[in-house]
């Protein structure tokens, strides 16, 4: 195995497989995609993440060829694909509804695309069998789509769209119809299959957990624009905006004013009667500039006494406790009514929990725990 990290987006020599170049798409007066540029590299598992109506499905439909950009171009391996109809593109799509042909058997569904290419019979049969093996569907080959379960149907849809060995596979909310447990198993299966086939995957999802699990890079979208494109850990640890911080995972957002206090360190005055907070940030802010501080709940430590060496510490009382089994989230109310969430791992039995409702507690975090965001 190649031990170097897979990160073609950091390599200036790497040629992207797909390039969106200043693409806009309008439906009448509605702008679905707004002057968007994006590069996706070969073998990537790329996730388009956003709330419904953010334009992620439009992006996918443009890649598949069902929509054409109003402005700008989309390039596949350097070639402008705008004039190429969907049936001539080396791109296949797995539909949200799976769109399995109900009058054809599983076998025939998988063979459908290959038959359109007039593949020789022996080769076709071998390819279909290979796809059936890959998705563990051998014993269902002769059944019709309505005779198998939802999870099996999902795998048929995947096998069918992979059968033609496309350069790019599009997955539209591929796991949306599955229940949570099956979805988690299938996520890992998808990653395995993506690795085995070496196909570039672009997945559309509104489920941030799913995007974080499967993707090599995630693009967070809102109202037809890309908010941030980065690896899942960058998106989570260093969101570039309040929107991204808030969309991905749980977060405490504190609004305040920044004052520089030395190298990359800022003092944030945020509420009357509360001590100022300290945060370090590589982005430079002018004195008195409005800013947001984003702190993940798991980076907030909860304790009964004020920790001696803590740089940021505020006092409050436990307002609510959400017990999630492995974790507990404490909602701590400060004197001014602000609620700050703090998360701890439940390494002890619940009967030995240190805090309960209405207990006075201290919340603390380090200077680097929070992300400082400009307004």
């Amino acid at each position, binding site marked *: 195995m190649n031990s170097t990290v897979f990160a073609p987006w950091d390599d200036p020599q790497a040629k992207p497989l797909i390039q969106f170049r200043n693409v806009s798409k309008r439906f009448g007066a509605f702008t679905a995609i707004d002057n968007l540029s994006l590069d996706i590299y070969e073998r990537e598992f790329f996730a388009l993440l956003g709330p419904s109506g953010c334009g992620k499905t439009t992006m996918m439909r443009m890649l*598949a*060829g*069902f929509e054409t950009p109003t402005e700008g171009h989309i390039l596949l391996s350097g070639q402008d694909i705008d004039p190429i*109809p*969907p*049936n*001539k593109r080396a*791109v*296949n*799509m797995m*539909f*949200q*509804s799976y*769109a399995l*042909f*109900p*009058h054809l058997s599983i076998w025939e569904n998988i063979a*459908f*695309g290959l038959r*359109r*290419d007039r593949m020789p019979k022996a080769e076709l049969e071998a390819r279909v069998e290979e796809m059936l093996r890959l998705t563990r569907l051998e014993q269902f080959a002769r059944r019709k789509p309505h005779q198998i379960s939802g999870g099996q149907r999902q795998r048929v849809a995947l096998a*069918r*769209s992979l059968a*033609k060995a496309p350069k790019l596979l599009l997955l539209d909310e591929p796991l949306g119809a599955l229940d949570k447990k099956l979805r988690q198993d299938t996520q890992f299966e998808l990653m395995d299959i993506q690795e085995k086939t070496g196909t570039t995957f672009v997945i559309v999802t509104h489920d941030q957990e799913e995007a974080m699990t499967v993707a090599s890079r995630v693009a967070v979208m809102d109202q037809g624009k890309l908010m941030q494109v980065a690896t899942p850990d960058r998106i989570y640890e260093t969101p570039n905006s309040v929107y991204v911080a808030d969309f991905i995972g749980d977060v405490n957002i504190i609004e305040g004013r920044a004052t520089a206090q030395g190298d990359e360190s800022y003092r944030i005055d945020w509420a009357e009667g509360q001590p100022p907070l300290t945060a370090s940030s590589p982005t430079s802010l002018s004195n008195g500039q409005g800013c947001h501080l984003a702190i993940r709940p798991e980076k907030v430590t909860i304790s009964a006494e004020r920790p001696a060496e803590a740089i940021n510490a505020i006092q409050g009382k436990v307002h609510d406790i959400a017990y999630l089994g492995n974790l507990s989230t404490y909602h701590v109310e400060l004197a001014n009514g602000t609620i700050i969430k703090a998360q701890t791992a439940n390494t002890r039995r619940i009967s030995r929990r240190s805090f309960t409702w209405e207990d006075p507690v201290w919340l603390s975090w380090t200077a680097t725990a929070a992300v400082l965001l400009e307004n």
Partner: protein
Amino acid sequence: MRRAVLIAIPYVWLLALFLVPFLIVLKISLSDTALAIPPYTPTLDLSAGWAGIREFFGQLDLENFVWLTEDDLYWKAYLSSVKIALISTLLTLLVGYPIAYAMARAPEEWRPTLMMLVILPFWTSFLIRVYAWMGILSNEGYLNQLLLWTGIISTPLTILNTNTAVYIGIVYTYLPFMILPIYSALERMDGSLIEAAEDLGCSRLQAFWLITIPLSRPGIIAGCFLVMIPVIGEFVIPSLLGGSGTLMIGKVLWEEFFSNRDWPVASAVAVILLLILVIPIVLFQRNQQKQAEADQ
């Protein structure tokens, strides 16, 4: 007990409204014509007891059925009816499918209106609508006037009293029976199936042929049977719009009954017609059943 009653109700219904009339017609078809009221013999005389019944059955014979094979008018009429039914079913399908397709593809808010337009003609008497066609198709009719006025033709076309007029009348009358089942099949179809087919390399036409047609097949079959079965026995349209050259078994049947007053031969014609119709009806039933099984 309750189940038996529940099952019995439709069977009693069937017995009273189908089997009994059929047996009466069958009996008449085995009788001889007579100048009497009713115009056939024998009639069952129960007062004569067992001997009467024996004599009654003794007089029944297949003479009329033999007659149907001897005069070529009848088998020609049957054949012509089936031919006209097949051709007009095909024409109705060719006209109806695109309409149903367009309806199913129309914006959601338009569909009830379009459906209404298809059903609307049923609000007027069928007979009046056929009469209206006589006004349109006759030599001095609106169609000829329009064609003459636009200069497409210089002498009026003879359409009324030909088979063409019969086809026009049948296609017009039976179109809703073709459109509705096809529409309901197409409307249920998931639009992403066509996109999936295109995505996998189909052209628009191939996708239509490989996906849309097979998925609307139950609708096509239902529509074809709904049109063909009544058209084989159709009487009003050929007698109003057709000419002397239009040979249909419904017309022959009517003439035997009312012009010739030969009830036994007319009944024999009806029995054979029923047998001809039973075949497509059985096929239709089997199709429905298969579809119901497939939907499970």
